[in-house]
C-alpha cells in the first residue's frame, strides 16, 4: 500500500505538471476561452472574439501537486511491508 501511494503520488504530480505544461503553461487563472484579435482592414479597429480553448491555470497545477503531496503524506501512515523469513 505504501509503495502504491508513493507511485500514485509521483504519477499525479507528473500528470498535473505535464498537462499544465502541455496545455500552454498558463501562469494565470484557468481559462476555458482564448481571446482572438482580428484587425478590421477598413476601420483599422481590432475586434475581440473568443474561441473555446481549455488552458489550466496555476490553481489547477497547485491542486494537482497538493493532491500528489497528500498521497505521499498518506503513504507514511502505512508501515513498510517486511518479508517474513520464517
Amino acid at each position, binding site marked *: 500500500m505504501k509503495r502504491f501511494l508513493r507511485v500514485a503520488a509521483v504519477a499525479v504530480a507528473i500528470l498535473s505538471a505535464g498537462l499544465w505544461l502541455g496545455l500552454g503553461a498558463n*501562469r*494565470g*487563472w*484557468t*481559462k*476555458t*476561452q*482564448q*481571446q482572438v484579435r482580428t484587425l*478590421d482592414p*477598413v*476601420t*483599422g*479597429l*481590432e*475586434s*475581440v*472574439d*473568443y474561441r473555446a480553448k481549455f*488552458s489550466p*491555470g*496555476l490553481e489547477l497545477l497547485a491542486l494537482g501537486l497538493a493532491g500528489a503531496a497528500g498521497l505521499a503524506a498518506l503513504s507514511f501512515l502505512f508501515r513498510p511491508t517486511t518479508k517474513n523469513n520464517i
Partner: protein
Amino acid sequence: MKNSLQSARSAILLAAGLITGAALNAATQSFDFKDPKGVNNAVFKLDAPLEAINGSANGVSGKVSFDPANPGDTKGTLKVATSTLTVPNPMMKEHLHGDQWMDVAKFPEIVFETKSLSDVKTTENTTTATATGTLTIKGVTKEISAPVTLTYLKDKLGLRVPNMKGDLLVIRSKFTIKRADYGINPGAPQDKVSDTIELTLSVAGASPQ
C-alpha cells in the same frame, strides 16, 4: 410703401436664415454604432495579483452626430450591453455578471453621453479632442473627461457593408475610472483587485446615404 419694403426685407432674411440653417443641418451626419459585424468593442482591464483581469464587450450601440467641417460639435450617446461583458475564465464571468459586480440583470447598459468636445485638433480626416460627458454604470452617473480620436472615413461604408453607400466614423478612446465611484463591488479589497479600471473603446459608426 416703407412697410412693404421692410416686410420683403424680413422675408428675404428669414428665407436666407432658413436656407443657411438647412445647409448647416445637412452637413451634420448621424452615425449609427450598432455594428452587425461585431467589430465594435470595449475592452476593460483591472490589475490583480496573479494576473490582470482582461475582458471585453461587443454589444455596442448608439448614435453620434458629426459634422466633418466642424468636428468640435460632435455629440451623441454610446451604449454597451452589460450582458456581453466577457472574460476568459467562466467563474470570473459569472462573478462579473453578478449583483456584486455589474448586476447585468438590473443594469443592462453602460451609457456614455457626450456633452462637449474641447482641445479639438484636426489633421486631414482625424480629429483628437477631449470629450466631456456623463458615464452611467450600475445606475450611477458621473461626469468624466476622456481623450478621443475621431476618424472620418468618407465613402468607406461600402467596403464594410456591400451594396451600401455612405461614410464611416471611427471613435477610439482610452481612459480610466474608479470601481468604487460606480459601486462596482466596493467591498472587494484593492490589494486583490485594483480600484482602477482601464477602459479602451474602439468603435465605428455608419452613416448610410
